[in-house]
């Protein structure tokens, strides 16, 4: 179970959120809601452990994540606003180096299969610089299929995706939840997922 | 007292430029720095009540 206790976060002199508390058991998902600039991205970065909160703490399986970074980083998969893709590398290379940096590995065949699932047939060996906005996003999301993790923290995963990819992403998330994973996400669109928990900011 | 005249004190037997250059630089620096910090202090103190009111 992922638990957030009494979290407070300041930016400049602005208080984004205060005394925020919620829990997320395995198999459940949580949508962070709020207008533009409400602090959703900031919250997700705090949960991932990239930013230290002013007050409060985040615990995973009853351990504070900042004290037990090894375990937490192994169980966490975070996808932010940034693409984290290198324009010069192909989709397959991007994926395999991404995995390598996290201590996982996967054969090119597996990666190709995953890319195909995400609708990137024929584009695997093109440098990412030539891909369209939606195709880049798909490359990034393919990590969900190849990187084992039990907590997914996804910041606006649905941007730039077309209808078909949106539907596929939803089934991917559902499968993850059925397998006992949990997920936190933000989105301004209405999602085709079974109802989950929500937190509203701002 | 080491000096017989002001003249002697100021010229320092030919080392006046160097001695006074050193002491002068120290004096200037160590007088300006506190003034500068005071300035910062005053700026904050005058700003503070205004912020509180608004």
């Amino acid at each position, binding site marked *: 179970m992922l638990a957030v206790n009494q979290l407070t976060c300041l930016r400049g002199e602005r208080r984004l959120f205060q005394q925020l508390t919620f829990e997320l058991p395995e198999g459940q998902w949580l949508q962070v809601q709020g207008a533009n600039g409400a602090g959703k991205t900031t919250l997700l970065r705090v949960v991932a452990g990239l930013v230290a909160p002013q007050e409060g703490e985040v615990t995973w399986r009853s351990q504070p994540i900042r004290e037990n970074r090894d375990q937490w980083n192994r169980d966490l998969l975070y996808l932010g606003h*940034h693409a*984290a893709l290198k324009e010069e590398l192909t989709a397959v290379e991007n994926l395999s180096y991404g995995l390598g940096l996290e201590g996982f590995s996967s054969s090119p065949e597996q990666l190709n299969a995953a890319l195909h699932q995400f609708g990137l047939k024929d584009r695997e060996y093109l440098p990412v610089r030539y891909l369209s906005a939606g195709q880049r996003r798909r490359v990034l999301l393919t990590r969900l299929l190849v990187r084992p993790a039990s907590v997914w923290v996804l910041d606006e995963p649905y941007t730039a995706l077309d209808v078909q990819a949106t539907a596929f992403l939803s089934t991917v998330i559902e499968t993850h939840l059925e397998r006992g994973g949990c997920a936190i996400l933000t989105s301004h669109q209405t999602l085709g997922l079974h109802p989950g928990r929500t937190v509203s900011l701002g | 007292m080491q000096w017989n005249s002001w003249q002697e004190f100021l010229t320092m037997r030919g080392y006046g430029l160097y001695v006074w250059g050193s002491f002068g630089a120290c004096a200037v620096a160590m007088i300006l720095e506190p003034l500068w910090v005071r300035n910062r202090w005053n700026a904050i103190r005058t700003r503070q009540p205004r912020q509180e009111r608004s």
Partner: protein
Amino acid sequence: MNGFVMALRRDMVLALRHKSEWLTALFFFVIVTNLLPLGVGPEASLLRKIAPGVLWIGALLSTLLGLPRLFAPDHADGTLEQMALSPIPLPWLVAGKIVAHWLVCGLPVVLMAPLLGLQFDLPVRSLGLLVVSLMLGTPLLSAIGALGAALTLGLRGGGALLSLLILPLYIPALIFGAGAVEADLAGISAQGHLSLLGAILVVSVFFSPWVTSMALRIALE
């Protein structure tokens, strides 16, 4: 360990794909050292005299040039976040990146140096010492530089700030490095200079990945 190799390989592939990086460093080195005879005039004795200093400064500047791009692209596109969240300890990954930076910016310079030394009319015996001193010196430049690059990551005025922070720390390396070659040219033993260079090298290479990754975590906040 595995993460170290992975980070190293990834950066090398990127550099080779890009070419810009290592070619720029090498090219810059060659240019700096080659323009000098053009600007100063081709007096052999004069050139020989300034050669060790000029070659070392060239190496130092080409390392410095590559530094801002050590972490900045990864920071901009979010890869650095992923590295900070990786189960592999960050220092390993950072160490991989530092070694890659050296292989890309430092090693070509070291290998090129004897050729340029010849151009400056250095005696062949001193060329060996030039290579040794650069071989000890350039990894040290990369290691210390990485810390500066991490501290100034994403800041206004990054480039200038980086030089301001790093150059004072480079000065000892320059003095001992160029000093070694000059000592050898003058026919004295260069051992003292080289030992000191070695001492700085060992310490900086060992501690740099830790300190740098602390600086990176601070920069990511």
